[in-house]
């Protein structure tokens, strides 16, 4: 049980966070042959409302599939930050977007405020792909799977014609995470 690593992508419905979780679980389970489980939680709305996608990675079989002691979390809305921050481990890492989350009074764990939206706007030209930037950050900072595995898993789920765009988003994530690591 202790070798569980728990990831949580949180934000609002429509941001693609469930997909980000699926890609991470796919990379771990299929490309690296680890035990991985992905779950999701969202409200009855088609868009909006808080949503989270969780991935547990472990060397032993995973029984309880939900995160309870979160090692890595991304928050892409203030509501999600407030709602889902509680079960972050004391030394867990929380990545919040600088524009989308502004009130950090509930903060727990080690907080990093990253300008993901700005990077997306400047380097991708639009906000589509914010989920993949977040995915890149968590992969790089945790080292849970290799760059190669996550890229393979990503390419499997990306619509035709958007391969390069998504690869670029992933690399932006890697780069932002490296900056965090250097500033640690």
């Amino acid at each position, binding site marked *: *049980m202790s070798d569980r690593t728990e990831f949580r992508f949180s934000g609002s419905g429509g941001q693609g966070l469930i997909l980000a979780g*699926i890609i991470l*679980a*796919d990379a771990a*389970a*299929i490309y690296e042959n680890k*035990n*991985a*489980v*992905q*779950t*999701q*939680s*969202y*409200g*009855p709305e088609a868009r909006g409302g808080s949503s989270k996608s969780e991935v547990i990675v472990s060397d032993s079989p*995973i*029984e*309880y*599939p*939900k995160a*309870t002691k979160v090692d890595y979390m991304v928050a892409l809305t203030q509501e999600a930050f407030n709602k889902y921050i509680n079960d972050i481990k004391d030394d867990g890492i929380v990545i919040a977007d600088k524009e989308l989350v502004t009130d950090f009074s509930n903060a727990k764990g080690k907080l990093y405020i990253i300008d993901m939206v700005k990077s997306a706007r400047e380097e991708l030209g639009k906000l589509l792909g914010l989920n993949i930037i977040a995915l890149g950050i968590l992969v790089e900072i945790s080292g849970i799977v290799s760059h190669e595995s996550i890229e393979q898993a990503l390419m499997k789920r990306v619509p035709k014609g958007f391969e390069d765009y998504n690869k670029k988003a992933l690399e932006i994530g890697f780069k932002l995470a490296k900056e965090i690591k250097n500033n640690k």
Partner: protein
Amino acid sequence: MTKNIKLMQGNEAIAEGAVIAGCDFFAGYPITPSSEVMEVLSNKLPKIGKAFIQMEDEIAALGAVLGAALGGAKAITASSGPGMSLKQEHIGYASMCEIPCVIVNVMRGGPSTGLPTLPAQGDVMQAKWGTHGDHAIIAITPSSVNESLYETIRAFNLAIKYRTPVLILTDEIIGHMRERVVVPDKNDVDIIDVKLPDVPPEKYNPYNYTSGKVTPLAPMGEGYRYHVTGLIHGETGFPSQRTDVIQNAQNWLMDKIYKNIKDIEKFEEFQTEDAEILIVAYGSTSRSTRQAIMMARSAGIKAGMFRPITIWPFPEEQISNLSKRIRKILVPEMNMGQIIFEVQRNACGSQVYGLNIVNGEPIAPDQIYTKIKEIAGL
């Protein structure tokens, strides 16, 4: 054989299992959290020459499935919450007319619209008693994505073999979670196919209440002409009010399931050999239970689990036997207490405790462990 390993959702695994089982037909009406079963089959079935249809509502969906099954198709539908309430009348019709079909219920919070996106285990008694009148039912509660696939294949087999509706009673957690699955080849699993009767049409009776054997359901259009009605009927299929026919028909609906319970039952025991506390858990709750048992064991508490995989008919004999030597039994459920009464009924005077958490979240291992400690007197 190269292994076909995929990351998939429980609902996708059900669809995958249906295709492997030789499913010919799906009819349904989308409803969270079961919709992915339908979505995946809408894509897969037409590509292999099989039929998929979205019906105008839940009732019609099961009606279409029963029609297809009478035509010899292996047929399935999937639903949740209020959709399952609507399906009850046709479940009774399937029982009465002995029409094989598989019905997936991905349980969500209720009653009414309840919690469309959140898990519960509140439909366990509905699965058994949802439709009116005495009848037996088979219901299966998978606890992983992998099991969802294999148990779907088994559900089709049981449906054909016993000419009965079979319910796959999963929940939002198992239905929506993604895990690694080894997808088997059709040739590596046992599949029971629809058979023609072994008598010519003029000698065929669609029902047989006394031989103890299930008569094959002759597909409509193969030259076998018979009557199908929800009225109590004799062995020819025509309605009857003769007391002996009525009693035979009623007995048969129960007997064909309960007298074959050894073939239908399926369960898992986990660390029960030396257990002093037994936990009876099914579906996603059994996953938390397994983790709680490991926590208890490392604290020196001898706990074990009995996990029904076939939940209906209920494994009465196993509970009765286990309770002779394990005198404390805990039944955690994501409902206000349903299977606990089945356990109590068979528990030979053992102390039976419930842990009933119905708040939209799965029951966590910690919550079960805390209860185990309380029962152990720690």
